[in-house]
């Protein structure tokens, strides 16, 4: 693909654009720094869970935010990969990095299979079809004996990563998790800012026009879906190793709903939004964990509020305000 004309050379950038880029760099730097000191500020296991959810939501965002497809079945990739990683590390005794790879491989294959069928429909049908497939995976996991059914898949070892990092230590495990998160986030960043990512946005904005320009729309959407599924799998496998178990709730439709909420709350189609949303939702769930079903009620209420009044999400809102202040001044 011809890359010329995709981004103008730095010298010709207008001042607002340059300033906006500086702001973006600043935001990334802040996030990276926050990630480095996080285990000092909060309990490392909580921080690791937030990172896994943040990666999950960021991967999900590639589909909803950049391709305009609402998947209601991402729990299958997240939870399915958790089980795959569990089998590889606990039952086969392989190291955690191979567990992660197995999770990614499983989720990618599953994503290719379901995506190929679901991509034939758009909008609402797409949401319902992905939900149906995820439910199929859920029922299979309930029925098959090796998954442990309602008890979950327990006793996944953290082990030694790359033969030398002892993940039993929470701090080591945290920085390992953080590295995997950054790797996944970087892959997404590259995808979003590549010509591929731009065409995805073009498809979201106007599919017939993208089609008429000669882009293979179906194949590109499928690619985005598979990439998103694979990275969701990475997040799920990572979480299984960190928490040392995989369980049915990871596969249930509530998890698919939760990842939608994280992305919506943080800002669909913004790079940092899903991570911010993941932090908020995880904090909410932890904060309300002693109050039974009030978590469900609050989650639902936040959903309603976001959809009615706050569709840009937190990061989207901030970005809009910053952009307006530049245009105004």
């Amino acid at each position, binding site marked *: 693909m011809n890359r010329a004309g995709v981004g103008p050379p730095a010298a010709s950038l207008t001042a607002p654009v340059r300033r906006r880029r500086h702001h973006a760099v600043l935001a990334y730097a802040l996030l990276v720094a926050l990630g480095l000191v996080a285990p000092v500020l909060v309990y490392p296991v909580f921080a690791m869970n937030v990172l896994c959810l943040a990666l999950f939501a960021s991967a999900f965002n590639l589909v909803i935010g950049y391709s305009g497809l*609402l998947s209601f079945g991402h729990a299958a990739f997240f939870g399915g990969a958790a089980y795959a990683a569990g089998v590889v590390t606990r039952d086969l005794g392989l190291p955690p990095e191979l567990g992660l790879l197995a999770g990614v491989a499983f989720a990618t294959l599953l994503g290719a299979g379901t995506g190929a*069928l*679901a991509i*034939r*429909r758009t*909008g*609402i*049908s797409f*949401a*319902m*079809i992905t*939900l*149906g*497939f995820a*439910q*199929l995976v859920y*029922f*299979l996991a*309930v*029925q098959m004996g090796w998954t442990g059914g309602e008890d979950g898949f327990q006793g996944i070892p953290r082990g030694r990563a790359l033969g030398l990092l002892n993940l039993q230590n929470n701090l080591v495990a945290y920085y390992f998790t953080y590295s995997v998160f950054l790797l996944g986030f970087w892959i997404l960043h590259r995808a979003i800012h590549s010509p591929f990512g731009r065409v995805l946005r073009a498809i979201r904005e106007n599919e017939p026009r993208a089609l008429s320009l000669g882009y293979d729309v179906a194949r590109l959407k499928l690619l985005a879906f598979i990439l998103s599924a694979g990275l969701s799998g990475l997040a799920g496998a990572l979480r299984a190793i960190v928490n040392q178990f995989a369980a049915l709730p990871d596969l249930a*439709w509530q998890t698919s*709903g939760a990842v*939608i909420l994280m992305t*919506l709350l943080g800002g669909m189609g913004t790079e940092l939004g899903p991570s911010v949303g993941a932090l908020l939702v995880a904090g909410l769930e932890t904060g309300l964990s002693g109050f*039974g*079903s*009030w*978590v*469900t*009620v*609050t*989650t*639902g*209420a*936040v*959903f*309603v509020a*976001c*959809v*009615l009044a706050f*569709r840009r999400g937190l990061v989207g809102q901030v970005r809009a305000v910053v952009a307006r202040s530049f245009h105004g001044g």
Partner: protein
Amino acid sequence: MTQALFGQLLLGLINGSFYALLSLGLAVIFGLLDVVNFAHGAQYMLGGFLAWILLAHFGVGYWVAIAAVPAAVGLLAMGMERLLLRRLYGLDNLYGLLLTFGVALVVEGLFQNAFGISGNSYPVPAGLQGGIHLPFMYLPIYRAWVVAVSVFVCLVSWLVIERTRLGSYLRAGTENPRLLQAFGVNVPLMFTVTYGFGAALAAFAGVMAAPIYQVTPSMGSAAIIVVFAVVVVGGMGSILGSIVTGLGLGLVEGLTKFLYPPAASAVPFVIMALVLLLRPAGLFGRAV
């Protein structure tokens, strides 16, 4: 052997009756409002739960509940359409799905807080107790009543939509609401009433289900996801498709329970995948 087979088929037919009632309401709402009503499950649960509350706390019986509860839930839903859903028309229809999903979570969570997660049983109403011994199986009267009433309600709804003036407005609104409004029809009111009708249908199904299944706060979300598969198989927005597919999938599910029980809950989704492979628009849907 045949006893077991017919028993499972009857159970499947009953499940199918509920699928048909629920997907009919979903199809009517989706057709006109372009909203996938995720709160449909919550409205179904409300139907069952309100009937149970009326009986357990106020001594009000089945025959009053079956009329009053759907009316109440319908009114509630009309209020929800006016206050919340209306603000989202003209936006991407995914927001309608997300809004109703949020509402469903709130309702389910509130009921879990108030009543716990365990099931409550609702007695079979007087007059429909007992059963008939057929040569090949035992048929409880209440179950026959459920199947008969569901099929009747579905057929009447279908006839009203296809054969009456009101139905013609509804179909016209599905095709082009603006043009219909230009002819002087109060389309916003039609939206409200249609949403209320769909929700009332769900609550009606909930009251009917109360004596058969356990009444729990999660009965709605368990049902709604299968109903979504029904809607995908039948074809989005197709009224006849949702009725036929609902009953059909229920029967297939029952048959699977007889042949290989562990696969029963997965079967609707496997059929969904197969149909998508062969007819992406669904059995009764129009290709877009």
